[in-house]
C-alpha cells in the first residue's frame, strides 16, 4: 500500500486519439505518470506536445473528436474514467480543480465575482451563502486581493493579473486536493507573472496542495517545480527532479529546450536553436520522434524501434533516449 499512499494520482498507459476525417492524430501516446501527494509537478512541452490533452484526461474532460483509447486514470486509487456524470461533476473542482489557459476569460462577463462564487458553491451543494462568502474572502485575501472590492466587481473592472488571482482563489473554494494549472501566467506581463508565481508558491506551501503545472516555458519551472515531465510529440521524453532536468538532462530535447531559452545572465552566444520542427502527429516518424531534429541520432539505434519506454537511469530520473549517456557531452 505504500505506493498508493505516495501517489495521489496515477496515469497508466494513457493514449488519446483525435479521429479526423481522413487520418488519426495521436495527441497522447501510451503515457504513464504518477503525481506524488503534495508536490508541484511541472509538465513542459511546446504547442502540440500533448500536455493539455494529457491533463484533460485527469478530469476525464477530453473534448471531441478526441477520446481516450486506452489506459486508466486513478485518483486515490479510484478509476476516474469509470465514473458516471454525477460522480464526475462532484469530482471536478472538489477533488481536482483547474485553472485554464487564458483563465482571465473564464469569468462570466455579466456576473459579479460574488455571484460566480455563489453559483459554483451552489452547483457543488456548498451552503450556506454566508459561510461560502466568508471563505471566499479569506481566499481572496490569501492571493493578496481586496475582497470588498473584488466581490462586487464585474470581470472587466479587474486587471489581467487580478482576474487570474481571482480564478486561483475561486479554484481553491472547495478545498481540492489537486490544482491543475494550464499555462496560468502565459498571458500576463512579466511583473504580474512573477507575482502570481510567488502567490502560487505560497498557496502550495501553506495549503500543502498538490499542483500540476503545465507550461511551454521551461524557464518559469526552475523556481517552482519539484519534478518536471518533458513532453514531445505526445510522449513523456524525460521525467526527473527539477535539479535533474536543469543540471543534467538526459534527453537531447530537454537540453535543447534549456539551451534555446534566452536568459538575462548567460552568454548570449551559448544560446542555440533546436533545428527543424516538431513532427506531424498524424504521420509520426518510425522510432524516436525527436530523431529528425537530434544531433545525437545514430543510424540503426534511433529509427525503427517504437517501444518508447522510459528508462530509469538514476533514481526517479527517467529518459526515453537510448543515447542518454551522450546528452551531457
Amino acid at each position, binding site marked *: 500500500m505504500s505506493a498508493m499512499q505516495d501517489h495521489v494520482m496515477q496515469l497508466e498507459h494513457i493514449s488519446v486519439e483525435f479521429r479526423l476525417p481522413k487520418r488519426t492524430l495521436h495527441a497522447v501516446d501510451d503515457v504513464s505518470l504518477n503525481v506524488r501527494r503534495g508536490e508541484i509537478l511541472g509538465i513542459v512541452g*511546446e504547442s502540440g506536445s500533448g500536455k493539455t490533452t494529457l491533463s484533460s484526461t485527469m478530469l476525464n474532460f477530453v473534448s471531441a473528436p478526441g477520446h481516450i483509447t486506452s489506459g486508466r486514470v486513478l485518483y486515490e486509487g479510484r478509476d476516474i474514467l469509470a465514473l458516471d456524470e454525477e460522480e464526475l461533476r462532484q469530482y471536478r473542482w472538489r477533488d481536482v480543480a483547474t485553472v485554464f489557459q487564458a483563465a482571465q476569460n473564464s469569468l462570466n462577463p455579466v456576473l459579479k465575482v460574488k455571484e460566480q462564487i455563489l453559483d459554483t458553491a451552489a452547483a457543488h451543494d456548498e451552503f450556506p451563502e454566508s459561510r461560502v462568502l466568508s471563505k471566499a474572502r479569506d481566499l481572496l485575501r490569501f492571493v493578496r486581493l481586496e475582497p470588498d472590492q473584488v466581490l462586487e466587481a464585474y470581470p472587466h473592472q479587474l486587471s489581467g493579473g487580478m482576474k487570474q488571482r481571482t480564478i486561483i482563489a475561486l479554484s481553491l473554494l472547495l478545498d481540492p486536493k489537486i490544482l491543475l494549472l494550464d499555462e496560468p501566467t502565459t498571458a500576463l506581463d*512579466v511583473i504580474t507573472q512573477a507575482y502570481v508565481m510567488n502567490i502560487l508558491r505560497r498557496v502550495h506551501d501553506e495549503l500543502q496542495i498538490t499542483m500540476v503545472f503545465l507550461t*511551454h516555458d521551461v524557464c518559469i519551472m526552475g*523556481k517552482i517545480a519539484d519534478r518536471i515531465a518533458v513532453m514531445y510529440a505526445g510522449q513523456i521524453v524525460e521525467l526527473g527532479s527539477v535539479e535533474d532536468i536543469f543540471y543534467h538532462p538526459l534527453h537531447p530535447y530537454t537540453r535543447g529546450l534549456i539551451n534555446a531559452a*534566452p536568459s538575462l545572465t548567460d552568454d548570449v552566444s551559448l*544560446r542555440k536553436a533546436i*533545428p527543424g*520542427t*516538431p513532427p506531424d502527429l498524424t504521420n509520426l516518424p518510425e522510432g524516436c520522434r525527436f530523431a529528425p531534429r537530434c544531433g545525437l541520432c545514430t543510424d540503426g539505434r534511433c529509427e525503427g524501434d517504437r517501444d518508447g519506454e522510459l528508462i530509469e537511469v538514476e533514481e526517479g530520473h527517467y529518459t526515453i533516449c537510448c543515447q542518454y549517456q551522450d546528452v551531457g557531452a
Partner: protein
Amino acid sequence: MEQPLLALDHVRMDFQSRGGLLKKRATVRAVDDVTLRLDEGEILAVVGESGCGKTTLGRMVVGLLHPTAGTIRFRGADVRTLRGDAYAAYRRGVQMVHQDSYAALNPARTIFQSLSVPLLHHKLVGSRAAARERLEELLTLVGLVPPDQFLDKYPHQLSGGQRQRLLLARALSVQPNLIVADEPVSMVDVSLRISLLDLMSEMNRRFQIAFIYITHDLATARYIASHGRIAVMYPGKVVETGNLNTVLSNPRHPYLQALLAAVPIPDPRVARNMKELPLRSLDMPDPTNPPPGCRFHPRCLYAQERCSQEEPPLAALDGEMVACHYAEQVPTWEWQSVSAG
C-alpha cells in the same frame, strides 16, 4: 553627426476613449513626448509591459498612425509632409512584422497571392513570373525550403514559426531600410524563437537593415540587440535608454530594476533565492489619469516627495539616459543582490 535613418522628436499620441451617457470622453496619452533616433543598420529594442505605448510607437514609425504632436523624420524628411514618390519610398522603406502571423496573412489567399502584391505594387518585378522567381529566392533566404512547396499553400497549412518567417520574407521583399518587429516571437514555440531571432540578426548584418524590436521580454531583447540599443518604456514615456549591454548590466531606473527582477531565471538554485520584487504595488497606473510627477512614483521603493510633484526629464547619466530624479541615489543593481547564493 550623420543624418539618422529615423528621428522621433517630442512625439505624442493621444487616443480618445469612447464616451457614454454618463461617462465623459477620456484622453489616453499612449505615447507622451518621446524623442528617439535610429541610425542606418542599427538595432533598437523597445521594451515595456502591455499598455506602455510600445506598439503605438511602432505603428507611428511605419505610418499607420499619425502622431498628435511632434515629428517623425525618415532620412531627414518629416513623414507628414511626404507626398507621391517620396511617400511611397518611405512606406516601402519601413516595414512591419506583426506578432500574430495568422492574423497578418489573408487566410483566403495563397502565400504567392499575398506576397506577390507588394512586389508588383512597388514595381520591383515586371511580371507574375518574375515575382514567383523573386519569392522563391526570398523564401530560401528565410529558410523555407524548398520554396515552391510553400508558395501555393494557404496560411493555415503552415506552422506559426513558418508563418513568422513568411512575414519576414514579405517585409524583406520590398528591400526596406527599417523593419519594425512587434513581438515577432512571442507566439512562436520556445525551441524556434532563437532561430527566428538569428534570422533577423542575419538580415541586419547582411543587408544593413535597421530593426526596431518591440517586446515585453528582456531576455529576447538582450539576445537580438546585444550590439544595439534599448529603450525602456513606462506608460507613454521612455524612462531609460542607451547601449543595451550597458543598460542591462547597470540598470538605473527603479522600474527597470523591478522588471529585471521579474524575469524568470531557469537555474533552480538561483531562482529559489530570488527576493521579493522591488516594488511597492503591482498595479500599472490608469492610462487616462496618470499619477502626477513621475509616473512610477506610486510603485517605487525610493520615491520621495519631489517625485510626486515634478516629472523627471530623461537626462544623461554615465553614458545612458535615465528619467529619474534620484537615479544616482538608487542602489546599483547586481545580480548577486537578488540571488543570495
